[in-house]
């Protein structure tokens, strides 16, 4: 998941075509619809409401354009002013945290992972909004509830997730002896070995990359039956299952392209698009960029879910995008109304289309959107909610699980062993100690 900054020209070109494709309603129609919606909505924005909204900086240009259209229609229909500011993935959490701590500056944040769980007692109860959307849009997936609910109360609304799935080059995988994408752990390791042999290496981040490193390493841990915490949130990382996961990842790492221990969230995008990397775990953003700038790569690449674990089940960590409303906002009704409005089918469908697969829904009704089947290469990203776990895994999602993912406990454990800094036992003991420090 990278910082893609397309130049102005390609941005205009791409944006225009996407917009044409995405817009099922003209702006007047949208405004008319928005006005009618505002009349009947159960949340009545406070008069003169001004909302400061912080969101992550877009990776897909057209997605942002579609989002701002929604914001614009809402503003016109309700006379609410919404100030949207953008921050990169890495900066959004510190900013949101500072706002939570000082009690000012922002009214709502559209952030990453389990952001609301870092400061649950600063979040407005969004249960009414979540229930409304659930009823209207086909119900919440189990992972959606896990990402939004704390003790039976919705502290955030999981808008969407970007799937952390395998991005691979078809020809290279075939040459490595895998016409079909492997479904089990051994096949996956064999594929990566084969890729290395043909000098078309794979690589996944082992550095402090909030998105790219956490996602696949949690998968590797879970796939081998390992867990950071059990269902009572007791730290159980030091286990034979974890040891197996470490050995497995070390095997993969040895066949990776060199340098993955230093990778951040954009490194694999760059290398993949430069024909140096032939398999990685990422959102759909590589494909979206390739379609525009590198059609021969786009034609030769495909996506797949990570292989099932030893128990035959696939559990993946994806990058959830929850939206939260601070409880110190002066305009809770306006914030709730906006959240509900943007996730109504009339807004959400074109928005998801504009995002070209970057936003996978947690609301089951949205799986029917044609974007997921129009291009079969998008399809794996449709089912992200089904395989998604929260960073707590089997445990209960809360502040501590959110902290441990932010502190790279699991990533550092794998990196420590893979780079040879520590042996299996020490790496697990170090992680256990770090986790116990957090879950104390």
């Amino acid at each position, binding site marked *: 998941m990278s910082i893609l900054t397309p130049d102005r020209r390609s941005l205009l070109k791409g944006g225009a075509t996407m917009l044409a494709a995405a817009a099922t309603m003209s702006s007047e129609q949208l405004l008319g619809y928005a006005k009618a919606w505002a009349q009947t909505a159960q949340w009545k924005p406070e008069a003169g409401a001004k909302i400061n909204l912080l969101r992550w900086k877009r990776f897909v240009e057209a997605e942002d354009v579609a989002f701002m259209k929604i914001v614009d229609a809402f503003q016109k229909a309700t006379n609410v002013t919404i100030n949207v500011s953008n921050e990169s993935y890495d900066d959004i959490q510190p900013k949101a945290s500072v706002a939570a701590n000082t009690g000012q500056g922002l009214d709502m944040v559209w952030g990453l992972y389990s952001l609301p769980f870092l400061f649950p007692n600063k979040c407005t109860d969004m249960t009414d909004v979540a229930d409304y959307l659930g009823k209207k849009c086909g119900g919440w997936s189990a992972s959606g509830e896990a990402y939004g609910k704390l003790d039976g109360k919705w502290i955030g609304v999981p808008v969407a997730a970007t799937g952390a799935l395998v991005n691979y080059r078809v020809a290279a995988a075939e040459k490595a002896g895998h016409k079909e994408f492997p479904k089990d752990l051994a096949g996956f390791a064999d594929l990566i070995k084969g890729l290395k042999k043909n000098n078309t290496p794979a690589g996944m981040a082992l550095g402090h990359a909030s998105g790219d490193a956490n996602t696949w390493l949690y998968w590797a841990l879970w796939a081998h039956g390992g867990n950071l915490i059990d269902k009572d949130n007791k730290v159980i990382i030091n286990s034979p299952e974890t040891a197996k996961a470490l050995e497995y990842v070390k095997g993969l790492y040895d066949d990776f392209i060199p340098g993955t221990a230093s990778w951040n969230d954009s490194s694999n995008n760059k290398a993949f698009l430069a024909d140096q990397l032939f398999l990685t775990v990422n959102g759909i953003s590589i494909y979206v960029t390739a379609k525009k700038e590198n059609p021969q790569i786009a034609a030769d690449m495909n996506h797949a879910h990570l292989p099932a674990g030893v128990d035959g089940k696939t559990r993946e960590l994806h990058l959830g995008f929850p939206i939260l409303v601070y409880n110190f906002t002066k305009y809770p009704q306006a914030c709730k109304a906006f959240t509900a409005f943007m996730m109504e089918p009339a807004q959400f469908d074109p928005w998801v289309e504009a995002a070209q697969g970057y936003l996978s829904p947690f609301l089951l009704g949205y799986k029917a959107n044609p974007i997921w089947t129009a291009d079969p290469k998008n399809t794996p990203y449709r089912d992200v909610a089904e395989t998604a776990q929260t960073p707590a895994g089997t445990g209960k999602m809360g502040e501590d699980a959110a902290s441990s993912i*932010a502190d790279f406990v699991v990533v550092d454990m794998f990196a420590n062993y893979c780079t040879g800094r520590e042996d299996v036992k020490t790496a697990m003991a170090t992680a256990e100690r770090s986790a116990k420090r957090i879950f104390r």
Partner: protein
Amino acid sequence: MTTLQTSAPAQAPAAYTPPLWARLQANRNWIALWFMLPAAAFLILFLAYPLGLGVWMSFTDERIGRSGIFIGLENYQWLWDDSIFWLSVFNTLLYTIIASAIKFAVGLYLALLLNRHMPFKAIIRAIVLIPFIVPTVLSAIAFWWIYDAQFSIISWSLIRLGLIDHNINFLGDSNWARASVIFANIWRGVPFVAITLLAGLQTVSPSLYEAATLDGATNWQRFRFITYPLLTPIIAVVMTFSVLFTFTDFQLVWALTRGGPVNATHLMATLSYQRGIISGRLGEGAAIATAMIPFLLAAIAISWFGMQRRKWQQGSNND
């Protein structure tokens, strides 16, 4: 901040004591107190208060969005047997000592060169300052590309020259990563040292060199017995600052490696940020930040007591 207490007048009462207000009006110390008040308020509000708050926070379990309760030394106990914390202490010391030493050597050398007469002197001096002027984050991003695992210009050039056959893993290997961030820090810090020392050099009277030359002093002797002693006070100041800046460096490391690979470049400042802000444990982050204070005090003490308090500055010999 202690000025507030010490400035109260302490005069022996005379036979006739005018009323208190009249005495105060005539008292210079009393007036001085008022003149100092704005500065003191500034210092207390923006320096002492945050510092005190940080230290206090380190004794609590405060998290983001929730005030903490006093837990005594618990944060420090956890840190005491936390290998990542000690690794960050080691990294910080390594980073500071190596970078400061090289910055001093290169800076001094550069200052001596720039102090000579040469064409385009002013322009050259201005150019030397460039690394210092460029915002840290920008230079960090440039270095990030230079050190990239796949697209490094250095690796590319060396491969083209046939000197190596694969990319150098600049930021992915512990030792390479440490060397890389230290180099970037040196590149950025040298101009500050060089220009400040150059300013010091220009205050040295040319007549001293003339006299020394007449006495037959060599280049080295002139440097050792004239330049260096006269430059010592400014060296003390510039190295104190340099050490402090390096010790508390954050942006460069954060932008380049985020403390990776496997915490090999985590400095105390970056670890404090990661634990305090990113993962929300304000108390623990504050404890790491507070743990930096003794090191900083030691650094200041060494340079000030070791270099500035020399008696020759008052005209007598060293002890």
